[in-house]
């Protein structure tokens, strides 16, 4: 590079560094920044009773549950569902942990379990109601307990305690990419709640940070599962569709549900982690988008 161009580049770059912090306007993120023109939902699998718990392993493979029939499936090399666990005891929300095991809310046995690669389960917490779960990089985990309006924490040593109470129906639960903020969906209310995650697992500074769009005749969002992409955008399954928020909590828009049925949960999966997978009642769908995720076990997810 010529010396003059170098100097010019330096001038422009340093100028930007000086000015950018002065601009208080947050970046606008529209649906068109994520959706691809011409890409629609594609059917991945059907004939289930009630699909839930979409989870992605370290290779980008999708796992999901059929809660009512107590099965866990994964997609084979051809992208077709194959049985992974044929008696899941009603396992609902799921997420892979940094140890490669699949953690799940095994409700019929009132426990949180971890499945190994052969589908064998080990209890992580017992005598608990649960709906959805998020695993922390440290190996700790949080899960929602809608029946008792509370959120639980399980330390890496396996000690469990309640860390939040009071939401109408805490359901979906995920962490920001840097794991410093926890987001919990209230199915009975209009908000997703944000909490600061303390080093000991406690939750602080609870706030109705995200406000969802509601159906005209409803006061509840029916918010279920959620996921958060690498840019900090939140995607939450609701009665009106998949609602997307920017990292400052502003609604970006509502992505249409693939069918008129209960939209229960969402995850990014696929080899490039650039495909949204949703569980929607009896079917599972996917849609390629212009967004991706850090997984909590990725070094980049810091």
């Amino acid at each position, binding site marked *: 590079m010529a010396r003059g161009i170098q*100097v010019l580049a*330096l*001038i*422009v*770059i*340093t*100028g*930007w*560094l*000086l*000015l*950018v912090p*002065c*601009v*208080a*306007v*947050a970046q*606008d*993120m*529209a*649906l068109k920044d994520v959706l691809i023109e011409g890409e629609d939902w594609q059917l991945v699998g059907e004939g289930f009773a009630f699909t839930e718990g979409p989870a992605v392993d370290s290779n980008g493979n999708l796992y999901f549950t059929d809660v009512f029939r107590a099965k866990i499936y994964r997609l084979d090399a051809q992208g077709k569902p194959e049985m992974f666990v044929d008696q899941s005891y009603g396992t609902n929300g799921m997420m892979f942990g940094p140890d490669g095991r699949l953690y799940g809310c095994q409700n019929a046995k009132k426990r949180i379990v971890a499945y190994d690669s052969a589908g064998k389960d080990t209890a992580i917490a017992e005598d608990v109601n649960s709906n959805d779960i998020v695993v922390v990089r440290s190996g700790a985990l949080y899960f929602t307990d809608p029946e008792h309006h509370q959120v639980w924490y399980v330390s890496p040593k396996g000690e469990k305690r309640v860390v939040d109470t009071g939401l109408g129906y805490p359901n979906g639960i995920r962490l*920001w990419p*840097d*794991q*410093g*903020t926890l987001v919990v969906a209230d199915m009975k209310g209009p908000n997703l709640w*944000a909490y*600061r*995650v*303390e*080093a000991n697992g406690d939750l*602080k*500074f*609870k*706030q109705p*940070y995200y*406000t969802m769009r509601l159906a005209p005749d409803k006061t509840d969002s029916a918010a279920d599962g959620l996921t958060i992409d690498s840019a*900090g955008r939140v995607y939450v399954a609701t009665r009106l569709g998949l609602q997307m928020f920017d*990292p*400052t*909590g*502003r*609604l*970006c*828009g509502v992505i249409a549900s693939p069918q008129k049925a209960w939209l229960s949960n969402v995850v990014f999966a696929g080899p490039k982690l650039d495909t949204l997978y949703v569980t929607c009642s009896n079917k599972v769908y996917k849609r390629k988008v212009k967004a991706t995720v850090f997984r909590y076990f990725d070094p980049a997810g*810091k």
Partner: protein
Amino acid sequence: MQATRLVFYVLGGALLNLGVPFTNLHGATDYRLGPDSERKEGVPVGTVTKSQWTSKVFGGTQRDYWVYVPKQYDPARPASVMVFQDGGNYVDLTKDFRVPIVFDNLIHKKEMPVTIGIFINPGVIPAAATDQTPRQNRSFEYDTPSPQYAEFLLKEILPEVGKSYKLTTKPEERAIGGISSGGICAWTVAWERPDAFQKVLSHVGSFTNIRGGHIYPALIRKTERKPIRVFLQDGSADLDNLHGNWPLANQEMAAALKFAGYDYRFEFGDGGHNGKHGGAILPDSLRWLWQDVVAARAGK
């Protein structure tokens, strides 16, 4: 690299980049600051003090705020109050508004009352660990149509500043202003608490659907008029994005205020989403906003 050269590069870069984030190719008028935005010899200079606040109303948020006190302030007489959102921007003597200089000049000429300025930045919930991202609370605080920001001012900031200075409790002597989301926030504070704030100054206000604020024109038309005096500024090259169209939203606000019989003024120029036009007309805006208080005091 030598320090002097670094300074040259940084300043040079800043000049080259000025205006780039808000590039506007619509032939906007070249808005310039007038004499009331410049320091003048013989005009007393007020003091500006910076502090930090940790809030309970916006639990866990921290923020900087600045308090401007004019030289003419007399502890025996309660001062009028004007609050600004994004306070760091409004209090800065090198940016678009230079409020302390404008206040010094207008207070000296008795074109606005002796007024204490409170310039408040939006809150941030700091991260618990250094490798984590803080939670930015600006949109939540400014864009939400709710009484929470008014509560924050009335329960926390005004009592805190009131420990050091005698502040008015008259709502007609309390004003609030802001730019963009800070503009709609100013309106929301007065709309929710007209018993506490009755003067609003909005620069390129975000009366759009960021968090539901687009409802105001409709609410204004179908709500008994509230005792709020409001100055709105916007420009035809303002934003048009997923949240809405700023020029249309501000025109809707002005039309609704007119319909409902409000004491309002709307300056619609051809600028973009920035403070250039608002800064250029700030002295006139303040003269208009405070005229009733000035007249009342002159009559006494």
